[in-house]
């Protein structure tokens, strides 16, 4: 999405990334909530999709996000050992290790796909994470329309 900044001198349109975040309900989503109630300021580029657990996240969801125009995807859940469903995040973790390899091979690398553990108490971590990821993606630029996984407009 393009946003023109108003200033006294003409400025180039800045690229504002669209980032999709798949987060678990019990930890990361609660952490995001805490960031909000703590009035922490963080970039608004991230659209959060809440799931009960990272174990529910089918890697296909990540591809769908890219397909539909996401410039980057963040997947975040409970720290190992803290999963509300005991082992959902362990299942997820194993999947991500393999899946990111496949995505890297096909042109979606570490500058577009991010993973984290954020607990319900880590509001600051969430805010910092969003700011950091957004800055990285802004630098990486728009996800190429020419990528074979992207829906042609």
């Amino acid at each position, binding site marked *: 999405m393009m946003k023109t900044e108003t200033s006294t001198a003409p400025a180039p349109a800045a690229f504002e990334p669209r980032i999709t975040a798949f987060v678990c309900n019990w930890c990361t989503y609660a952490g995001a909530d805490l960031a909000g109630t703590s009035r922490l300021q963080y970039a608004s580029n991230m659209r959060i999709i809440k799931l009960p657990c990272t174990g529910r996240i089918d890697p296909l969801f990540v591809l769908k996000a890219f397909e539909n125009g996401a410039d980057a995807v963040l997947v975040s859940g409970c720290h190992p050992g803290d999963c509300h469903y005991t082992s959902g995040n362990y299942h997820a973790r194993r999947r991500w*290790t*393999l*899946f990111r390899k*496949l995505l890297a*091979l*096909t042109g979606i690398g570490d500058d577009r796909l991010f993973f984290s553990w954020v607990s319900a108490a880590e509001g600051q971590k969430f805010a910092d994470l969003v700011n950091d990821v957004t800055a990285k993606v802004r630098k990486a630029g728009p996800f190429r329309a020419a990528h*074979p996984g992207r829906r042609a407009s």
Partner: protein
Amino acid sequence: MKALREAAEKLLREKRVSLVIGYEGRKGRPAFFAAKPEDCGRLAYDASCRQNLAAYLGKPEIRARLPVALVAPPAVLRSIVVMSAESQVAPGQVLALAVDGDSYLGTFDAAGAAELLRAKYSTLAPEPALLERVQGLLQKSPAERAAFWEAEFSKCTRCYACRAACPGCYCSRCIVEKNAPQWISTAALGHGNYTWNVMRAFHQSGRCTLCGACEAACPQGLPLMLLNAALDREALEEFGSRPGYDPEAKPLIGSWSADDDHSYMR
């Protein structure tokens, strides 16, 4: 191949199986189904046989005729072991007529096949040339990799020959056949090709035995083995995964360890 034919004949004569699935000894080595001992004279095997006959174990018409015997080079032996580990075939329902090059190695059930693999084929891996191509691709920039796959996937016609040829693809309803919602676009021009090929490869993580039948079956010559080999190495390096050597093995993605790597997670 005389020993192979005799062994197949014996299995049918002794009614240990109702069908022998092998390759026919004529050009192209098509799949051949011998139901009578005297048909076994038409069986042959050599390196030009590229079909993975374990794919027939997912076919209802074949399942209705279990127990069956399959002519199985090492990669296919692994497929039989994987299907056993995934409870797709019960013990004794499939016998492998193990072959390698010109040799017939014996008749084995899944457990016996796994033992043979561990004893004589413990170092099966993707061909060095294939791994070099994977490395070569990884050394390119993400944009170059994207361009490479854009060109390749644009040829895909979504015929699903890769899926049909793979013994690991036995789902009675494939992810592409789900339309509420339509997870993967069925159009053969566009992003659906990427999603299909990547997800299909991913669904084989820790299960692919590198038989190459998918790539051989692809009418457009897509380099599917690049995806499979890359995942195979990752599964081995990260998790010590070697599918097809243990009929009791737990599925790779269906299990986990507290020690799994997460260095890339923040």
